[in-house]
């Protein structure tokens, strides 16, 4: 008993501080480190986003507009043929600065400098010059976290805008993604534009994602194509977040 008492007297402080530390870390895990990331935003406030890399963004934007035009032309033709198809409404977006990147080497994420107080919600769609970037999976008061479409766990239903064939796009980290097709001959060629399909539950249809870089149909069990994402994610400093309910659904899971 005496030795236990002595032990307690000696280690009381250390033990309670150790438990406190562990509890703090557990609390941060549960609150998704909201406090920490808010502090990060405050510290990086003077360094956020300047006017560099404009040209690349403009090029990407031009290409996006060209592809959107092609996409709209095809859609228009289809609408004329099928007069009762509902017309997709374009949402209103807010421009938001990017203040941070992924905090580890597995998740492809991005931290934005606006949050709940600015009306951002989980599930909101994030785009940038060049096309779709991802969707919001976490919000705190002044920051929000975006899961990029280049994350290996994010899957999106996509359409080839020329041939209207469908597939599932999976991120491959970096600026590449892979499309797996349902059919043996998906009629995809290098250079084809890829847009979100109308079957996608998380994203509105018709958003530009990228262009086909190479097609591999040699394996009949697994026809796939490599896509280069058109939004230059590593250079982006501003993104547009679409807030209205029509373009976002709050179907979000954190785990892959």
């Amino acid at each position, binding site marked *: 008993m005496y030795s236990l008492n002595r032990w307690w007297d000696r280690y009381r402080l250390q033990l309670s501080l150790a438990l406190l530390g562990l509890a703090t870390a557990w609390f941060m895990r*549960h609150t998704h480190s909201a406090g*920490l990331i808010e502090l990060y935003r405050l510290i990086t406030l003077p360094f956020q986003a300047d006017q560099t890399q404009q040209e690349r963004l403009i090029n990407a934007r031009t290409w996006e507009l060209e592809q959107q035009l092609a996409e709209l032309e095809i859609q228009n033709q289809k609408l004329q043929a099928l007069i009762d198809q509902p017309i997709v409404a374009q949402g209103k977006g807010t421009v938001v600065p990017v203040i941070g990147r992924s905090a580890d080497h*597995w998740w492809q994420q991005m931290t934005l400098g606006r949050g709940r107080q600015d009306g951002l919600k989980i599930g909101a769609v994030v785009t940038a010059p060049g096309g779709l970037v991802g969707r919001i999976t976490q919000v705190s008061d002044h920051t929000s976290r975006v899961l990029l479409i280049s994350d290996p766990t994010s899957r999106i239903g996509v359409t080839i805008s020329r041939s209207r064939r469908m597939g599932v796009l999976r991120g491959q980290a970096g600026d590449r993604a892979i499309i797996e097709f349902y059919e043996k001959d998906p009629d995809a060629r290098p250079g084809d534009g890829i847009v979100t399909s109308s079957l996608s539950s998380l994203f509105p249809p018709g958003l530009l994602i990228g262009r086909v870089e190479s097609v591999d149909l040699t394996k009949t069990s697994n026809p796939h194509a490599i896509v280069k994402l058109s939004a230059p994610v590593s250079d982006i400093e501003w993104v547009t977040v679409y807030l209205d309910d029509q373009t976002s659904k709050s179907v979000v899971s954190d785990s892959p």
Partner: protein
Amino acid sequence: MIKPLSQWSPIALNTLNWVVMFGSVALCALALPLRLPGMELTGIGPNWLLIWVVAWSIKRTALQAVWAGIALGFIQDGLTAPYPTHALGLALVGFLTARLQKQRYLEEDFISVALIVFGMAVIAETIMALQFSLLNSPSAPPLAEIWLHHQQAALSSAILSSLWAPAVYYPLNLWWERLNWLEQQS
């Protein structure tokens, strides 16, 4: 004027030690989402929390090291996504660093610390890759892709983390050595 450290009371010193500890962990966590020029390789930055765990564990017992690894792993979980957890990898890193027979095989200097960080970064990324492989959920990426990404992530992370390791290790080690010396004096 601030009194020299040797005249501080033990309680004040202890408090300062905890401030330094929490402060340095916070700085490391805040550096994680940051990408400055020279701090990234193929979009991957140094794993600051791993460097901290190694710096902490080098002169401590395995238990203290594992505790620190778990706590910092939880923080990294909070900053990314909780499943799979980063705590497992960092706890193992702490344990292995604490159990390394440094006095026998390695000198206490920057080069050896950088070497330890290099090895531990590879181990931490491998634990993450293993956890991703063992997940059985329909949206988990295929095995081949996980291990391809693992190669790239482990190598970039190991190189960058070991290069930046002295930046964390040097001031912390200096402080803890100073503290030790002061405690032995009194």
